[in-house]
Protein backbone atom coordinates (compact mmCIF):
# COMPACT_ATOMS: atom_id res chain seq x y z
CA UNK A 1 0.00 0.00 0.00
CA UNK A 2 2.59 2.45 1.13
CA UNK A 3 4.89 1.87 -1.81
CA UNK A 4 2.07 2.52 -4.25
CA UNK A 5 1.31 5.78 -2.50
CA UNK A 6 4.97 6.79 -2.61
CA UNK A 7 5.15 6.07 -6.31
CA UNK A 8 2.08 8.16 -6.96
CA UNK A 9 3.49 11.03 -4.93
CA UNK A 10 6.81 11.15 -6.76
CA UNK A 11 5.12 10.85 -10.14
CA UNK A 12 3.06 13.96 -9.47
CA UNK A 13 6.16 15.72 -8.16
CA UNK A 14 7.86 14.84 -11.43
CA UNK A 15 4.93 16.32 -13.30
CA UNK A 16 5.23 19.58 -11.37
CA UNK A 17 8.95 19.58 -12.01
CA UNK A 18 8.43 19.04 -15.72
CA UNK A 19 5.99 21.93 -15.83
CA UNK A 20 8.49 24.07 -13.96
CA UNK A 21 11.38 23.45 -16.36
CA UNK A 22 9.05 23.89 -19.34
CA UNK A 23 8.04 27.31 -18.05
CA UNK A 24 11.71 28.25 -17.56
CA UNK A 25 12.47 27.15 -21.11
CA UNK A 26 9.48 29.04 -22.53
CA UNK A 27 10.95 32.24 -21.07
CA UNK A 28 13.25 32.54 -24.10
CA UNK A 29 10.31 32.41 -26.50
CA UNK A 30 8.38 34.92 -24.41
CA UNK A 31 11.36 37.30 -24.42
CA UNK A 32 11.77 37.14 -28.21
CA UNK A 33 8.06 37.80 -28.74
CA UNK A 34 7.96 40.56 -26.12
CA UNK A 35 10.97 42.29 -27.70
CA UNK A 36 9.05 42.52 -30.97
CA UNK A 37 5.86 43.70 -29.24
CA UNK A 38 7.61 46.31 -27.10
CA UNK A 39 9.68 47.74 -29.95
CA UNK A 40 6.55 47.84 -32.11
CA UNK A 41 4.44 49.66 -29.55
CA UNK A 42 7.30 52.00 -28.58
CA UNK A 43 7.82 53.08 -32.16
CA UNK A 44 4.14 53.18 -33.15
CA UNK A 45 4.18 57.00 -33.07
CA UNK A 46 6.89 57.33 -35.70
CA UNK A 47 5.34 54.80 -38.08
CA UNK A 48 2.02 56.60 -37.74
CA UNK A 49 3.61 59.94 -38.60
CA UNK A 50 6.22 59.03 -41.20
CA UNK A 51 4.81 55.82 -42.57
CA UNK A 52 7.02 54.10 -45.11
CA UNK A 53 9.12 57.23 -45.56
CA UNK A 54 10.72 56.45 -42.20
CA UNK A 55 12.51 53.69 -44.07
CA UNK A 56 13.35 55.73 -47.15
CA UNK A 57 13.74 59.28 -45.84
CA UNK A 58 16.97 60.88 -44.71
CA UNK A 59 15.88 63.90 -42.63
CA UNK A 60 16.84 63.91 -39.00
CA UNK A 61 15.36 66.86 -37.17
CA UNK A 62 14.40 66.63 -33.53
CA UNK A 63 13.44 70.29 -33.05
CA UNK A 64 9.99 70.48 -31.50
CA UNK A 65 7.29 71.27 -34.04
CA UNK A 66 9.55 70.53 -37.02
CA UNK A 67 10.24 66.89 -36.30
CA UNK A 68 11.11 64.80 -39.29
CA UNK A 69 12.88 61.48 -39.19
CA UNK A 70 14.20 59.07 -41.79
CA UNK A 71 16.33 56.02 -41.14
CA UNK A 72 17.66 55.37 -44.63
CA UNK A 73 21.21 56.74 -44.09
CA UNK A 74 21.69 54.59 -41.01
CA UNK A 75 20.34 51.44 -42.64
CA UNK A 76 22.73 52.11 -45.52
CA UNK A 77 25.54 52.83 -43.05
CA UNK A 78 24.96 49.54 -41.28
CA UNK A 79 25.03 47.55 -44.51
CA UNK A 80 28.05 49.38 -45.94
CA UNK A 81 30.19 48.97 -42.80
CA UNK A 82 29.08 45.37 -42.29
CA UNK A 83 29.64 44.61 -45.98
CA UNK A 84 33.14 46.12 -45.95
CA UNK A 85 33.93 44.26 -42.76
CA UNK A 86 32.85 41.02 -44.42
CA UNK A 87 34.90 41.83 -47.52
CA UNK A 88 38.03 42.15 -45.38
CA UNK A 89 37.23 39.73 -42.59
CA UNK A 90 35.78 36.78 -44.49
CA UNK A 91 38.86 35.79 -46.57
CA UNK A 92 41.11 36.23 -43.54
CA UNK A 93 38.78 34.11 -41.39
CA UNK A 94 38.58 31.32 -43.96
CA UNK A 95 42.38 31.42 -44.20
CA UNK A 96 42.71 31.09 -40.43
CA UNK A 97 40.18 28.27 -40.35
CA UNK A 98 42.07 26.50 -43.13
CA UNK A 99 45.33 26.88 -41.26
CA UNK A 100 43.82 25.60 -38.03
CA UNK A 101 42.05 22.61 -39.57
CA UNK A 102 44.40 21.56 -42.39
CA UNK A 103 47.91 22.88 -41.99
CA UNK A 104 48.89 23.67 -38.41
CA UNK A 105 50.86 21.17 -36.35
CA UNK A 106 49.00 19.96 -33.28
CA UNK A 107 50.66 22.17 -30.66
CA UNK A 108 50.05 25.30 -32.76
CA UNK A 109 46.45 24.28 -33.34
CA UNK A 110 45.51 24.50 -29.66
CA UNK A 111 47.48 27.68 -29.03
CA UNK A 112 46.09 29.49 -32.07
CA UNK A 113 42.51 28.44 -31.44
CA UNK A 114 42.98 29.95 -28.01
CA UNK A 115 44.29 33.20 -29.48
CA UNK A 116 41.29 33.38 -31.81
CA UNK A 117 38.95 32.83 -28.87
CA UNK A 118 40.68 35.55 -26.85
CA UNK A 119 40.15 37.91 -29.76
CA UNK A 120 36.44 37.15 -29.42
CA UNK A 121 36.51 37.75 -25.69
CA UNK A 122 37.88 41.30 -25.78
CA UNK A 123 34.95 43.60 -24.93
CA UNK A 124 33.67 45.77 -27.72
CA UNK A 125 34.32 49.00 -25.81
CA UNK A 126 38.02 48.11 -25.59
CA UNK A 127 38.14 47.61 -29.36
CA UNK A 128 36.61 51.05 -29.57
CA UNK A 129 39.17 52.59 -27.22
CA UNK A 130 42.03 50.94 -29.10
CA UNK A 131 40.60 52.02 -32.45
CA UNK A 132 40.08 55.59 -31.26
CA UNK A 133 43.53 56.21 -29.81
CA UNK A 134 45.84 53.74 -31.58
CA UNK A 135 44.57 52.31 -34.86
CA UNK A 136 42.98 55.53 -36.06
CA UNK A 137 46.32 57.37 -36.29
CA UNK A 138 47.96 54.55 -38.22
CA UNK A 139 45.07 54.25 -40.65
CA UNK A 140 44.86 57.99 -41.19
CA UNK A 141 48.58 58.60 -41.67
CA UNK A 142 49.58 55.46 -43.54
CA UNK A 143 46.54 54.49 -45.56
CA UNK A 144 43.93 57.21 -45.75
CA UNK A 145 46.18 60.22 -46.33
CA UNK A 146 48.26 58.70 -49.17
CA UNK A 147 45.21 57.28 -50.93
CA UNK A 148 43.28 60.47 -50.54
CA UNK A 149 46.08 62.67 -51.86
CA UNK A 150 46.63 60.52 -54.95
CA UNK A 151 43.14 59.32 -55.85
CA UNK A 152 40.83 61.37 -53.66
CA UNK A 153 39.67 63.83 -56.30
CA UNK A 154 39.02 61.28 -59.00
CA UNK A 155 37.33 58.36 -57.24
CA UNK A 156 34.02 59.18 -55.63
CA UNK A 157 34.22 56.65 -52.83
CA UNK A 158 37.63 57.92 -51.76
CA UNK A 159 36.78 61.62 -51.65
CA UNK A 160 36.71 63.74 -48.53
CA UNK A 161 39.38 64.78 -46.06
CA UNK A 162 40.67 61.83 -44.10
CA UNK A 163 40.16 62.43 -40.42
CA UNK A 164 40.37 58.88 -39.13
CA UNK A 165 36.86 58.80 -37.68
CA UNK A 166 34.99 57.48 -40.67
CA UNK A 167 33.37 54.53 -42.41
CA UNK A 168 36.78 53.07 -43.28
CA UNK A 169 38.13 52.94 -39.72
CA UNK A 170 34.86 51.55 -38.37
CA UNK A 171 34.82 48.83 -41.02
CA UNK A 172 38.41 47.78 -40.30
CA UNK A 173 37.71 47.39 -36.58
CA UNK A 174 34.46 45.56 -37.36
CA UNK A 175 36.42 43.21 -39.61
CA UNK A 176 38.82 42.43 -36.76
CA UNK A 177 35.86 41.80 -34.47
CA UNK A 178 34.06 39.35 -36.74
CA UNK A 179 37.18 37.32 -37.60
CA UNK A 180 37.02 35.16 -34.44
CA UNK A 181 33.31 34.42 -34.95
CA UNK A 182 33.68 33.30 -38.55
CA UNK A 183 37.07 31.63 -38.08
CA UNK A 184 36.13 29.48 -35.10
CA UNK A 185 32.83 28.26 -36.56
CA UNK A 186 34.42 27.62 -39.97
CA UNK A 187 37.18 25.66 -38.28
CA UNK A 188 34.62 23.42 -36.57
CA UNK A 189 32.82 22.90 -39.85
CA UNK A 190 36.04 22.04 -41.70
CA UNK A 191 37.02 19.60 -38.96
CA UNK A 192 33.60 17.98 -39.47
CA UNK A 193 34.55 17.09 -43.06
CA UNK A 194 35.22 13.31 -43.06
CA UNK A 195 38.83 12.38 -43.63
CA UNK A 196 37.82 9.94 -46.34
CA UNK A 197 37.02 12.98 -48.51
CA UNK A 198 40.54 14.34 -48.04
CA UNK A 199 42.15 10.94 -48.52
CA UNK A 200 40.37 10.44 -51.83
CA UNK A 201 41.83 13.72 -53.07
CA UNK A 202 45.31 12.93 -51.73
CA UNK A 203 45.14 9.60 -53.51
CA UNK A 204 44.71 11.43 -56.78
CA UNK A 205 47.96 13.25 -56.06
CA UNK A 206 46.44 16.53 -54.94
CA UNK A 207 48.46 19.11 -53.02
CA UNK A 208 47.18 20.51 -49.69
CA UNK A 209 45.59 23.45 -51.44
CA UNK A 210 43.94 21.21 -54.03
CA UNK A 211 42.61 18.96 -51.28
CA UNK A 212 41.17 22.02 -49.59
CA UNK A 213 39.68 23.30 -52.84
CA UNK A 214 38.39 19.95 -54.10
CA UNK A 215 37.36 18.09 -50.94
CA UNK A 216 36.96 20.43 -47.97
CA UNK A 217 35.29 23.47 -49.51
CA UNK A 218 32.57 21.69 -51.51
CA UNK A 219 31.71 19.50 -48.55
CA UNK A 220 31.47 22.33 -46.04
CA UNK A 221 30.04 25.01 -48.33
CA UNK A 222 26.65 25.51 -46.69
CA UNK A 223 28.18 25.52 -43.21
CA UNK A 224 30.72 28.13 -44.27
CA UNK A 225 27.94 30.28 -45.68
CA UNK A 226 26.16 29.93 -42.34
CA UNK A 227 29.30 30.90 -40.44
CA UNK A 228 29.72 33.99 -42.61
CA UNK A 229 26.13 34.99 -42.06
CA UNK A 230 26.62 34.67 -38.30
CA UNK A 231 29.63 36.97 -38.70
CA UNK A 232 27.47 39.37 -40.71
CA UNK A 233 24.90 39.27 -37.90
CA UNK A 234 27.56 40.23 -35.42
CA UNK A 235 28.78 43.08 -37.65
CA UNK A 236 25.24 44.40 -38.09
CA UNK A 237 24.49 44.42 -34.38
CA UNK A 238 27.85 45.67 -33.15
CA UNK A 239 27.45 48.95 -31.31
CA UNK A 240 30.17 50.36 -29.10
CA UNK A 241 33.26 50.13 -31.30
CA UNK A 242 31.37 51.51 -34.28
CA UNK A 243 29.83 54.31 -32.24
CA UNK A 244 33.28 55.39 -31.11
CA UNK A 245 34.85 55.28 -34.58
CA UNK A 246 32.38 56.10 -37.30
CA UNK A 247 32.24 59.86 -36.79
CA UNK A 248 28.52 60.07 -36.04
CA UNK A 249 27.02 62.12 -38.83
CA UNK A 250 23.27 62.69 -38.92
CA UNK A 251 20.75 63.59 -41.58
CA UNK A 252 21.37 63.30 -45.34
CA UNK A 253 25.15 63.73 -44.88
CA UNK A 254 25.23 60.46 -42.95
CA UNK A 255 24.80 58.52 -46.18
CA UNK A 256 28.00 56.52 -46.57
CA UNK A 257 29.02 58.18 -49.82
CA UNK A 258 32.75 57.94 -49.26
CA UNK A 259 35.03 55.67 -47.25
CA UNK A 260 36.71 58.70 -45.75
CA UNK A 261 33.64 60.59 -44.60
CA UNK A 262 31.88 60.19 -41.26
CA UNK A 263 28.81 57.97 -41.26
CA UNK A 264 26.37 56.43 -38.83
CA UNK A 265 24.87 53.00 -38.34
CA UNK A 266 21.53 51.97 -36.86
CA UNK A 267 23.03 50.84 -33.59
CA UNK A 268 25.38 53.81 -33.29
CA UNK A 269 22.64 56.40 -33.73
CA UNK A 270 20.56 54.71 -31.03
CA UNK A 271 23.53 54.71 -28.65
CA UNK A 272 24.49 58.29 -29.51
CA UNK A 273 21.16 60.04 -29.44
CA UNK A 274 19.46 58.13 -26.68
CA UNK A 275 20.60 60.54 -23.98
CA UNK A 276 19.23 63.52 -25.92
CA UNK A 277 15.79 62.09 -26.62
CA UNK A 278 13.19 62.56 -23.94
CA UNK A 279 10.66 59.92 -23.35
CA UNK A 280 7.36 60.07 -25.21
CA UNK A 281 8.73 62.33 -27.96
CA UNK A 282 8.86 61.49 -31.63
CA UNK A 283 12.64 61.49 -31.35
CA UNK A 284 12.53 58.59 -28.89
CA UNK A 285 9.94 56.79 -31.03
CA UNK A 286 12.25 57.20 -34.02
CA UNK A 287 15.17 55.65 -32.12
CA UNK A 288 13.01 52.74 -31.00
CA UNK A 289 11.76 52.42 -34.57
CA UNK A 290 15.37 52.06 -35.73
CA UNK A 291 15.73 49.43 -33.00
CA UNK A 292 12.76 47.59 -34.50
CA UNK A 293 14.31 47.65 -37.98
CA UNK A 294 17.57 46.37 -36.49
CA UNK A 295 15.61 43.65 -34.67
CA UNK A 296 13.95 42.46 -37.88
CA UNK A 297 17.23 42.47 -39.83
CA UNK A 298 19.18 40.72 -37.07
CA UNK A 299 16.42 38.15 -36.57
CA UNK A 300 16.33 37.24 -40.27
CA UNK A 301 20.12 37.04 -40.50
CA UNK A 302 20.38 34.84 -37.42
CA UNK A 303 17.53 32.54 -38.39
CA UNK A 304 19.11 31.86 -41.79
CA UNK A 305 22.55 31.35 -40.24
CA UNK A 306 21.30 29.00 -37.52
CA UNK A 307 19.47 26.91 -40.06
CA UNK A 308 22.59 26.52 -42.18
CA UNK A 309 25.04 25.93 -39.31
CA UNK A 310 22.86 23.56 -37.28
CA UNK A 311 22.18 21.42 -40.35
CA UNK A 312 25.90 20.82 -40.85
CA UNK A 313 26.75 20.33 -37.17
CA UNK A 314 23.83 17.95 -36.73
CA UNK A 315 24.87 15.88 -39.72
CA UNK A 316 28.35 15.74 -38.22
CA UNK A 317 27.13 14.64 -34.81
CA UNK A 318 24.93 12.02 -36.46
CA UNK A 319 27.95 10.69 -38.33
CA UNK A 320 29.89 10.29 -35.10
CA UNK A 321 27.11 8.32 -33.43
CA UNK A 322 26.57 6.17 -36.52
Amino acid at each position, binding site marked *: MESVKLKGGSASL*DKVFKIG*VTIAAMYVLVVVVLIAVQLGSGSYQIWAKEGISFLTGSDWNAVHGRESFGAAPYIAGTFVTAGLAMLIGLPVSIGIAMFLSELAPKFLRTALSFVVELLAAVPSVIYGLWGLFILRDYLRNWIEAPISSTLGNNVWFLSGTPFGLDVFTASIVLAIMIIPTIASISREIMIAVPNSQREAAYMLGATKWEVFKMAVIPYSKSGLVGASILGLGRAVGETMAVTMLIGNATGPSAFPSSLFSPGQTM*SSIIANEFAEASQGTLHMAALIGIGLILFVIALSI*NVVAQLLVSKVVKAHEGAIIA
Partner: protein
Amino acid sequence: MITVEQRAEFRKHFRDNISSRLITDKIVKGVVLGCVVLAIVPLASILFEVTKNGAPVLSIDFLTQIPGAVGSSDVGGIGPAIQGTLLLIGMSSLIGIPVGVLSGIFLSEYGNNRLGQTIRFFNDVLAEFPTIVIGLFAFMVIVVTFGYFSIMAGTFALSIIMLPIITRTTEESLKLVPVTYREAGYALGINRMTIIFRILLSSAKSGLITGVMLSVARIGGETAPLIFTILGSSDFFAGFAQPMDALPLRIWRLSFLPYDSSIAQGWGAALVLILIVLSLNIGIRYLFLRRRGGGRFRIVAGG
Protein backbone atom coordinates in the same frame (compact mmCIF):
# COMPACT_ATOMS: atom_id res chain seq x y z
CA MET B 1 54.86 3.65 -80.90
CA ILE B 2 56.15 6.32 -78.50
CA THR B 3 59.32 7.88 -79.69
CA VAL B 4 62.09 9.15 -77.47
CA GLU B 5 61.12 12.72 -78.29
CA GLN B 6 57.52 12.15 -77.27
CA ARG B 7 58.61 10.55 -74.02
CA ALA B 8 60.80 13.55 -73.24
CA GLU B 9 57.88 15.81 -73.99
CA PHE B 10 55.59 13.92 -71.63
CA ARG B 11 58.19 14.09 -68.92
CA LYS B 12 58.66 17.82 -69.37
CA HIS B 13 54.90 18.34 -69.36
CA PHE B 14 54.57 16.35 -66.14
CA ARG B 15 57.41 18.23 -64.46
CA ASP B 16 55.97 21.62 -65.39
CA ASN B 17 52.57 20.60 -64.15
CA ILE B 18 53.90 19.39 -60.80
CA SER B 19 56.15 22.37 -60.22
CA SER B 20 53.46 24.94 -61.00
CA ARG B 21 51.02 23.17 -58.69
CA LEU B 22 53.57 23.02 -55.93
CA ILE B 23 54.28 26.73 -56.34
CA THR B 24 50.56 27.50 -56.05
CA ASP B 25 50.46 25.35 -52.94
CA LYS B 26 53.37 27.25 -51.41
CA ILE B 27 51.78 30.61 -52.20
CA VAL B 28 48.49 29.57 -50.63
CA LYS B 29 50.26 28.33 -47.51
CA GLY B 30 52.05 31.67 -47.25
CA VAL B 31 48.81 33.63 -47.67
CA VAL B 32 47.08 31.50 -45.05
CA LEU B 33 49.93 32.03 -42.60
CA GLY B 34 49.62 35.74 -43.33
CA CYS B 35 45.93 35.56 -42.34
CA VAL B 36 46.88 34.08 -38.99
CA VAL B 37 49.43 36.84 -38.41
CA LEU B 38 46.78 39.42 -39.35
CA ALA B 39 44.59 38.13 -36.52
CA ILE B 40 47.38 37.99 -33.95
CA VAL B 41 48.67 41.52 -34.57
CA PRO B 42 45.52 43.35 -33.36
CA LEU B 43 45.22 41.14 -30.29
CA ALA B 44 48.86 41.70 -29.39
CA SER B 45 48.52 45.42 -30.03
CA ILE B 46 45.39 45.70 -27.87
CA LEU B 47 46.95 43.80 -24.97
CA PHE B 48 50.18 45.81 -25.28
CA GLU B 49 48.55 49.25 -25.50
CA VAL B 50 46.03 48.58 -22.72
CA THR B 51 48.81 47.40 -20.42
CA LYS B 52 51.22 50.20 -21.40
CA ASN B 53 48.66 53.00 -21.02
CA GLY B 54 46.64 51.49 -18.22
CA ALA B 55 49.29 50.29 -15.80
CA PRO B 56 50.63 53.76 -14.80
CA VAL B 57 47.26 54.91 -13.42
CA LEU B 58 46.59 51.79 -11.37
CA SER B 59 46.64 52.47 -7.64
CA ILE B 60 44.56 51.71 -4.58
CA ASP B 61 42.93 55.14 -4.86
CA PHE B 62 42.13 54.58 -8.52
CA LEU B 63 40.38 51.32 -7.73
CA THR B 64 38.41 52.55 -4.73
CA GLN B 65 37.70 56.31 -5.05
CA ILE B 66 34.75 57.98 -6.74
CA PRO B 67 35.54 59.89 -9.95
CA GLY B 68 36.72 63.47 -9.41
CA ALA B 69 35.20 66.53 -11.07
CA VAL B 70 35.72 66.40 -14.83
CA GLY B 71 38.91 68.16 -15.88
CA SER B 72 39.97 69.06 -12.35
CA SER B 73 43.33 68.11 -10.89
CA ASP B 74 41.65 65.63 -8.55
CA VAL B 75 41.00 62.82 -11.03
CA GLY B 76 39.59 60.37 -8.52
CA GLY B 77 39.02 56.73 -9.36
CA ILE B 78 36.69 54.15 -10.78
CA GLY B 79 35.46 52.62 -7.51
CA PRO B 80 31.73 52.92 -8.32
CA ALA B 81 32.27 51.42 -11.77
CA ILE B 82 34.00 48.35 -10.33
CA GLN B 83 31.32 48.03 -7.67
CA GLY B 84 28.60 48.41 -10.31
CA THR B 85 30.09 45.77 -12.58
CA LEU B 86 30.41 43.30 -9.70
CA LEU B 87 26.86 44.02 -8.51
CA LEU B 88 25.44 43.68 -12.00
CA ILE B 89 27.24 40.38 -12.53
CA GLY B 90 26.00 39.06 -9.18
CA MET B 91 22.41 40.17 -9.59
CA SER B 92 22.11 39.04 -13.22
CA SER B 93 23.48 35.65 -12.19
CA LEU B 94 20.73 35.37 -9.57
CA ILE B 95 18.16 35.44 -12.38
CA GLY B 96 20.13 34.09 -15.32
CA ILE B 97 21.66 31.00 -13.72
CA PRO B 98 18.50 29.36 -12.27
CA VAL B 99 16.37 30.08 -15.33
CA GLY B 100 19.16 29.05 -17.69
CA VAL B 101 19.92 25.82 -15.86
CA LEU B 102 16.24 24.88 -15.65
CA SER B 103 15.68 25.56 -19.31
CA GLY B 104 18.85 23.60 -20.13
CA ILE B 105 17.39 20.71 -18.14
CA PHE B 106 14.20 20.97 -20.15
CA LEU B 107 16.07 20.90 -23.47
CA SER B 108 18.22 17.95 -22.48
CA GLU B 109 15.65 15.84 -20.60
CA TYR B 110 12.29 16.77 -22.09
CA GLY B 111 13.26 18.65 -25.24
CA ASN B 112 13.22 15.89 -27.80
CA ASN B 113 10.09 17.21 -29.48
CA ARG B 114 8.88 20.12 -31.54
CA LEU B 115 8.64 22.52 -28.57
CA GLY B 116 12.19 21.62 -27.58
CA GLN B 117 13.46 22.22 -31.10
CA THR B 118 11.73 25.59 -31.27
CA ILE B 119 13.15 26.68 -27.93
CA ARG B 120 16.64 25.46 -28.84
CA PHE B 121 16.45 27.36 -32.09
CA PHE B 122 15.34 30.64 -30.54
CA ASN B 123 17.84 30.20 -27.75
CA ASP B 124 20.61 30.06 -30.35
CA VAL B 125 19.13 33.04 -32.15
CA LEU B 126 18.92 35.06 -28.93
CA ALA B 127 22.54 34.19 -28.13
CA GLU B 128 23.71 36.02 -31.26
CA PHE B 129 21.28 38.91 -30.95
CA PRO B 130 22.44 42.56 -31.00
CA THR B 131 22.63 43.45 -27.34
CA ILE B 132 21.59 47.02 -28.03
CA VAL B 133 18.12 45.72 -28.96
CA ILE B 134 17.95 43.83 -25.67
CA GLY B 135 18.95 47.07 -23.91
CA LEU B 136 16.13 48.96 -25.62
CA PHE B 137 13.76 46.19 -24.60
CA ALA B 138 14.82 46.43 -20.94
CA PHE B 139 14.42 50.20 -21.18
CA MET B 140 10.84 49.82 -22.42
CA VAL B 141 9.90 47.13 -19.92
CA ILE B 142 11.59 48.34 -16.73
CA VAL B 143 12.70 51.96 -17.05
CA VAL B 144 9.55 53.25 -18.77
CA THR B 145 7.26 51.22 -16.51
CA PHE B 146 8.87 52.30 -13.25
CA GLY B 147 9.87 55.75 -14.37
CA TYR B 148 13.54 55.74 -13.44
CA PHE B 149 16.88 54.35 -14.58
CA SER B 150 18.07 51.72 -12.19
CA ILE B 151 20.43 48.86 -11.58
CA MET B 152 17.34 46.61 -11.73
CA ALA B 153 16.84 47.45 -15.40
CA GLY B 154 20.50 46.68 -16.11
CA THR B 155 20.18 43.40 -14.28
CA PHE B 156 17.14 42.48 -16.37
CA ALA B 157 18.97 43.22 -19.63
CA LEU B 158 22.15 41.37 -18.68
CA SER B 159 20.24 38.35 -17.39
CA ILE B 160 18.62 38.01 -20.82
CA ILE B 161 22.05 38.15 -22.42
CA MET B 162 23.55 35.47 -20.17
CA LEU B 163 20.52 33.18 -20.32
CA PRO B 164 21.10 31.56 -23.74
CA ILE B 165 24.76 30.85 -22.96
CA ILE B 166 23.88 29.06 -19.71
CA THR B 167 21.00 27.18 -21.30
CA ARG B 168 23.19 25.91 -24.12
CA THR B 169 26.11 24.84 -21.95
CA THR B 170 23.79 23.18 -19.42
CA GLU B 171 22.06 21.21 -22.15
CA GLU B 172 25.31 20.10 -23.72
CA SER B 173 26.93 19.06 -20.46
CA LEU B 174 23.83 17.13 -19.36
CA LYS B 175 23.87 15.28 -22.66
CA LEU B 176 27.45 14.24 -22.00
CA VAL B 177 26.43 12.36 -18.83
CA PRO B 178 26.35 8.65 -19.77
CA VAL B 179 22.88 7.14 -20.01
CA THR B 180 23.94 4.40 -17.57
CA TYR B 181 23.97 6.99 -14.76
CA ARG B 182 20.31 7.70 -15.46
CA GLU B 183 19.51 4.03 -15.64
CA ALA B 184 21.23 3.40 -12.32
CA GLY B 185 18.96 6.04 -10.80
CA TYR B 186 15.83 4.54 -12.33
CA ALA B 187 16.87 1.09 -11.13
CA LEU B 188 16.97 2.46 -7.59
CA GLY B 189 13.43 3.73 -8.04
CA ILE B 190 14.40 7.37 -7.58
CA ASN B 191 12.09 9.88 -9.21
CA ARG B 192 13.22 11.84 -12.20
CA MET B 193 13.64 15.17 -10.45
CA THR B 194 15.99 13.67 -7.89
CA ILE B 195 17.93 11.89 -10.61
CA ILE B 196 18.39 15.17 -12.46
CA PHE B 197 19.41 17.19 -9.43
CA ARG B 198 21.42 14.63 -7.49
CA ILE B 199 23.03 12.59 -10.25
CA LEU B 200 23.01 14.45 -13.55
CA LEU B 201 23.73 17.97 -12.35
CA SER B 202 26.55 16.87 -10.08
CA SER B 203 28.11 14.82 -12.89
CA ALA B 204 27.81 17.77 -15.25
CA LYS B 205 29.18 20.23 -12.71
CA SER B 206 32.27 21.30 -14.59
CA GLY B 207 30.22 22.02 -17.70
CA LEU B 208 27.80 24.11 -15.68
CA ILE B 209 30.58 26.12 -14.10
CA THR B 210 32.08 26.69 -17.53
CA GLY B 211 28.79 28.05 -18.79
CA VAL B 212 28.45 30.37 -15.82
CA MET B 213 31.96 31.72 -16.20
CA LEU B 214 31.56 32.20 -19.95
CA SER B 215 28.38 34.15 -19.47
CA VAL B 216 29.87 36.22 -16.66
CA ALA B 217 32.87 37.09 -18.84
CA ARG B 218 30.48 38.09 -21.57
CA ILE B 219 28.15 40.33 -19.57
CA GLY B 220 31.11 41.89 -17.76
CA GLY B 221 32.11 43.54 -21.03
CA GLU B 222 28.64 44.53 -22.19
CA THR B 223 28.22 48.25 -22.74
CA ALA B 224 25.38 48.95 -25.14
CA PRO B 225 22.49 47.66 -23.00
CA LEU B 226 23.74 49.61 -19.99
CA ILE B 227 23.34 52.98 -21.71
CA PHE B 228 19.56 52.52 -21.65
CA THR B 229 19.26 50.94 -18.26
CA ILE B 230 21.73 51.91 -15.53
CA LEU B 231 22.57 55.24 -17.20
CA GLY B 232 25.84 55.82 -15.30
CA SER B 233 26.61 57.61 -12.07
CA SER B 234 29.54 58.95 -10.08
CA ASP B 235 28.45 57.57 -6.75
CA PHE B 236 28.62 54.25 -5.02
CA PHE B 237 25.58 51.99 -4.82
CA ALA B 238 22.67 53.89 -3.25
CA GLY B 239 19.73 51.54 -3.77
CA PHE B 240 18.21 49.26 -6.36
CA ALA B 241 16.11 52.08 -7.77
CA GLN B 242 19.10 54.34 -8.46
CA PRO B 243 21.30 54.71 -11.55
CA MET B 244 24.64 52.96 -11.28
CA ASP B 245 28.02 52.97 -12.97
CA ALA B 246 29.82 50.06 -14.63
CA LEU B 247 33.33 49.59 -16.02
CA PRO B 248 32.50 49.41 -19.75
CA LEU B 249 30.14 52.37 -19.46
CA ARG B 250 32.81 54.40 -17.63
CA ILE B 251 35.41 53.56 -20.31
CA TRP B 252 33.04 54.76 -22.99
CA ARG B 253 32.28 58.04 -21.25
CA LEU B 254 35.94 58.69 -20.37
CA SER B 255 37.03 58.16 -23.96
CA PHE B 256 35.03 61.19 -25.10
CA LEU B 257 36.45 63.63 -22.56
CA PRO B 258 39.06 66.00 -23.94
CA TYR B 259 41.45 65.68 -20.98
CA ASP B 260 44.57 63.55 -20.98
CA SER B 261 43.93 62.55 -17.38
CA SER B 262 40.46 61.22 -18.29
CA ILE B 263 41.80 59.24 -21.22
CA ALA B 264 44.54 57.78 -19.02
CA GLN B 265 41.82 56.73 -16.60
CA GLY B 266 39.92 55.16 -19.48
CA TRP B 267 42.96 53.01 -20.25
CA GLY B 268 43.27 52.11 -16.58
CA ALA B 269 39.62 51.03 -16.47
CA ALA B 270 40.13 49.09 -19.70
CA LEU B 271 43.07 47.27 -18.10
CA VAL B 272 40.95 46.31 -15.09
CA LEU B 273 38.11 45.14 -17.33
CA ILE B 274 40.34 43.15 -19.67
CA LEU B 275 42.05 41.51 -16.70
CA ILE B 276 38.68 40.39 -15.34
CA VAL B 277 37.37 39.11 -18.67
CA LEU B 278 40.55 37.44 -19.89
CA SER B 279 41.38 35.82 -16.56
CA LEU B 280 37.89 34.29 -16.54
CA ASN B 281 38.50 32.98 -20.04
CA ILE B 282 41.95 31.62 -19.40
CA GLY B 283 40.69 30.13 -16.15
CA ILE B 284 37.91 28.28 -17.95
CA ARG B 285 40.28 27.05 -20.61
CA TYR B 286 42.70 25.58 -18.12
CA LEU B 287 40.21 24.29 -15.59
CA PHE B 288 37.63 22.64 -17.75
CA LEU B 289 37.82 22.89 -21.48
CA ARG B 290 41.10 21.08 -21.95
CA ARG B 291 39.53 17.78 -21.01
CA ARG B 292 37.07 17.87 -23.83
CA GLY B 293 38.78 20.15 -26.30
CA GLY B 294 36.21 22.92 -26.17
CA GLY B 295 33.51 21.98 -28.62
CA ARG B 296 30.70 24.47 -28.77
CA PHE B 297 31.58 26.32 -25.57
CA ARG B 298 32.72 29.55 -27.07
CA ILE B 299 32.68 33.06 -25.78
CA VAL B 300 31.85 36.10 -27.81
CA ALA B 301 32.12 39.51 -26.23
CA GLY B 302 29.09 41.69 -26.58
CA GLY B 303 28.34 45.13 -27.92
